[in-house]
């Protein structure tokens, strides 16, 4: 009838224990799921991962044993899998496409020349920029500023000049993006190049800053910020063709 020949009574009696054990296992797994929810030490995504795994275990348990697929002809499994696979694939795609566009408000992106003037007594790190007498200088090594700008400072290897004049204008970039997994800022002015790309550690409510040296002064209109999120690639300022 359903493929088992010899002694149906014996077959079925053996299965009694399988069924009973399986239900105990299912109950235990459900218990674990509930405990995991109550214990609050796990992170959100870990809990979801565990729930996902336990659900699959229970699902397979019921379908393979209770629903007899293990003992029946393979065609039955094929019929069921067709529906299951297509449902999973289709709906993963739909949920994925339910992603929203990353949002940057007008005021969340700013590009400004650095204004920090040199100050005596301040600790500077190598690569810091300062404005002194209308020119920009870059720090050569970590040091604490003495009372005079041009005084020689101990670099650890002897006395030397702390500051080198730079040709160009350092700018401070600041941005705030709703969500994304790859951020890129580049200049759309070929005479004033800039390119910065990184993967933010936090995927939501991303805030970032960067200080970079540009050839000349620029305002934010000369730059483009591109954000990649799960389903979208957004560009600011908005590309009217997208």
């Amino acid at each position, binding site marked *: 009838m359903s493929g088992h020949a010899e002694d149906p009574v014996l077959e079925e009696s053996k299965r009694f224990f399988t069924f009973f054990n399986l239900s105990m296992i299912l109950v235990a797994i459900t218990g674990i799921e509930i405990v995991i929810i109550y214990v609050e030490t796990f992170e959100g995504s870990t809990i979801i991962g565990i729930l996902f795994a336990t659900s699959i275990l229970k699902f397979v348990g019921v379908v393979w044993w209770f629903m007899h697929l293990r003992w029946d002809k393979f*065609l039955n499994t094929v019929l069921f899998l*067709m*529906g299951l696979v*297509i*449902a999973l*694939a*289709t709906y993963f795609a*739909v949920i*994925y*496409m*339910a*992603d929203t*566009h990353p949002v940057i408000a007008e005021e969340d992106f700013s590009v400004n020349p650095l204004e920090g003037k040199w100050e005596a007594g301040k600790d500077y790190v190598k690569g810091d920029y300062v404005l002194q007498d209308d020119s920009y200088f870059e720090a050569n090594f970590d040091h604490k500023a003495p009372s005079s700008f041009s005084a020689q400072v101990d670099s650890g290897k002897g006395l030397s000049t702390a500051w080198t004049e730079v040709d160009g204008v350092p700018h401070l970039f600041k941005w705030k993006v709703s969500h994304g997994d790859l951020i890129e800022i580049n200049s759309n002015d070929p005479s004033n190049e800039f390119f910065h790309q990184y993967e933010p550690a936090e995927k939501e409510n991303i805030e970032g800053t960067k200080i970079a040296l540009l050839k000349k002064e620029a305002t934010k209109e000369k730059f483009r910020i591109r954000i990649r999120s*799960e*389903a*979208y*690639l957004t560009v600011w300022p908005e590309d009217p063709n*997208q």
Partner: protein
Amino acid sequence: MATESVKYVAPETETQLQNQVFPRPGQHTTGIIDWLTTIDHKKIGLMYGLAALFFLLVGGLEALLIRSQLWTHNLDVLNNRQYNQMFTMHGTTMVFLVIMPLSAAFFNFVMPLQIGARDVAFPRMNTLSLWCFIAGGITLNLSWFFTGGSPAIGWFGYAPLTDNRFAEVMNDMGPDFWVFSLQILGIASLLASFNFITTIINMRAPGMTMMRLPVFTWMTLVVSFLIILAFPAITIALAELMFDRTYGTNFYDFLEGGKPHLWQHLFWIFGHPEVYILILPAMGIVSEVIPTFSRKPLFGYGLIVFSGIIIGFMGFAVWSHHMFTTGMGIVATSAFSILTMLIAIPTGVKIFNWIGTMWGGRIRFETPMLFALGFITMFMIGGFTGIMHSSVPIDAQHQDSYFVVAHFHYVLIGGALFGLFSGFYFWLPKMTGRLMNEKIGKVVFTLMFIGFNVTFFPMHYLGMIGQPRRTHTYNLGHGFEAWNQIATVGAFILGIGIAIGVYQFVSSFFDKKLKPAGKNPWDARTLEWTLSSPVKEYNFARMPIIKSRDQAWENNYGPKEKHSEKEPVDDHGVHMPDRSWCPLVTGAGLLTLILGMLFHATKDLETGVVLERDYMIPIIGGIVFVIGIIMWAIEGPGGYHLFPKEDEE
């Protein structure tokens, strides 16, 4: 179709008629009760076909009204709401009440004959499926008579236009009729498909392996799988819409957090497989006709079957190409664009194989072949424009223009309808026992071919110069008038051709002056052509034992070891399932339930607020439905025996 040649048996084996609430109709039932209670797949197929041909004329009338309105600029044949109603009803009717039931008619009649079965796996469920289809057709067309008239929302019913909030007419019931009729039509399709899958997998004659099945049967199988996997999506989408309209949920209401975009996804997850459901049966028919009229076996049988399966499977992966302009984002649009381009490959393979079949064959140009050739050429044109759409930037130009209208009518009329008409001309002699008039058939083909191309080819151009779809009129100065007039003339020519064809089909059942067809008038190849025309009630007097593909051909022309054999005569006689009232009762219960739900609420005429809900009629319908099912379970399949003469088929 009467069983004139059957030997009658002693009364003990006749169906027991007493002791039942609904006495079960016995084996000698005739007349209208026979047709109402039949479970015979052949009769069911005929009823499907007749109803579908009726709806073809209804949908055609709706189309002619549309074309009349577009004759020239600023006409008033239809106002804008009526125009919207017309294209909604035309689309819904043609898709759900014509093409799908015509395909079902052929699946029902021909498939069991092709696999060597006496009926489908679940005969009563087959009948229920028919009555659900009839109920759906009735429900949809009842909409003309109630508040708001027919739905004016397009055959795809995009949210949020379908929300009560945007009703043009207060308490517009059109969309409600649309929702409920589609639900019951969905039930009809699902029931039929489960039946066909089980039948093809489980009820083949001995020796009929899967790779010996005719391509038409394979397409039946693929289409049935598509239906059972695609319809659930629209069932839920429609249910969610019903909840929104009737109970105030927020599934598609953007002001309350819903996403109208979700409707589009769910609709097209169904909608795209649906268009493959519409075209694959016609492809199956053409795969039978071309080898017959080329007197050559089908080229690359395995590839054609495999391509059909791939098309079906991939059909689930391309739905968002209907949504390229909705702002889904680069990743999604690119993915769907590529997948859509890929799906052209198996389609192309089929076309090459059909051409390969004809190559070197001895081609006869009778009417079925003319329609099959028309299918190949017209479907190719539709396919080319389809590939054009698959490119996203180009689609941005095409979207909502007449170019799309041209595309889908090329694949649906040039493709599906031509294929189905080919099937009619091919198989009606088997069903009626009479050959139809070949001259009239060729006239029908000529009118349809010319009319169709004159109507729809100019629409490619009209779309490119900017005529939008679904717009009830256009102003002077765009240059639309001339080609619209040509298209309208073409539409009337097409209409005349179709009308003559339909008349020819229906009258062939009654016209005694037509020549008898005999078993195999076309010298065709598959199993059904070994049977008499019309086919006897029991299909096969003795079960055939199949030895090869194209069994009829091999029996006539092949070597002896490939000839089919027959199972030994069974003293029991041939077991036939009993007729039953239960499917009709169950179907009537469902129809009552649906109509009850449509009218259960009393609403304020001014504000649309629901004043009172009365579920009495739906409950009665539900009870009748349940009673029908219980009686169904209790009565069992029943059965009686027939004893065909030794040499009879």
